């Protein structure tokens, strides 16, 4: 069953007075006649007593260790970001070279007779299958390495 709660209109003022320990006569008189505000004052007082006991038994680890830990984490974070950048660059290279090779294998070498010196186009066309295979191998290795690195980064 839900119960309606009745919050006292002086509650905020009593809370402030209890926290600052600055009581006006009016508030003190009110607290004597209001059970809700009396509870508030009592709880605030007891909580501070409880805190006093707890604070005295708190340990005090060396702050330098925490500073060191924070530096190490910062370095790890930077390394992770750098690795991600390298991975992205590798992926871009792999995609670009694979796409280029795929297009050249479909459409053949571009018409660049005018720009190439004599015999260069013939050489290029002759060596294209082996260059293509080599580049494809490189691209496959790059993709495999990216996948492996991404897995390692996630594990870290």
């Amino acid at each position: 069953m839900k119960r309606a709660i009745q919050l006292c209109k002086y509650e905020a003022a009593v809370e402030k007075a209890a926290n600052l320990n600055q009581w006006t006569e009016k508030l003190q008189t009110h607290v004597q006649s209001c059970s809700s505000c009396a509870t508030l004052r009592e709880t605030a007082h007891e909580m501070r007593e409880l805190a006093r006991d707890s604070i005295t038994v708190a340990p005090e680890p060396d702050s330098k260790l925490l500073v060191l830990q924070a530096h190490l984490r910062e370095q790890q974070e930077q390394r992770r970001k750098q690795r991600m950048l390298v991975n992205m660059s590798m992926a871009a290279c792999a995609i670009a070279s694979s796409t280029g090779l795929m297009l050249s294998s479909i459409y053949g070498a571009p018409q660049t007779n005018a720009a190439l010196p004599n015999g260069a186009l013939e050489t290029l066309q002759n060596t294209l299958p082996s260059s293509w295979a080599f580049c494809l191998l490189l691209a496959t290795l790059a993709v495999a390495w990216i996948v492996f690195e991404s897995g390692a980064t996630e594990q870290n």
Partner: protein
Amino acid sequence: MDEDNFTIFYKQTFPHLWAYVFRVTQDRSLADEIAQESFVRLLQEGTKGREFTNQRSYVFAIASNLMREYWRRSMRFEELPVEEQDVPSVIKNEDVDTRIDFAESYKKLSDMQRALLWLAYVERCDHSEIAGMLNLKKNSVRVLLYRAREKMQALLMRGGLKGEAKA
């Protein structure tokens, strides 16, 4: 924050933060872990060039988030619906004298209630700060605090009555 400033701030704040976490979680080793982690995270934020107007509040907010994370992981987080909480019957002012052991009664409150009472009356945070730290609505804080106080008083009364019966 440079290292010297951090050391000063750390020496002033660590015992208070540790006491807060310890009293709320009731676990000494967890309090060590969370209090230290909070300061490490504060330092990390500092190195990102951000400035916080109130570092003390900020480090308490980090600790509160870490505790919530811990409660969620251990599946014992007690979300307190504003309208459905065990509220004791009205307590008369003179009954407060029957209090036996505040610390023992405090342990019997929910995690959230312990955190609320600590932040409100030990750290003297205002309701909007508490709402931010505990991920609550600002308007709910007042009601939840009221319920926490009333529950505390009921527990104290029960303790007092038990004590009298034993005597």
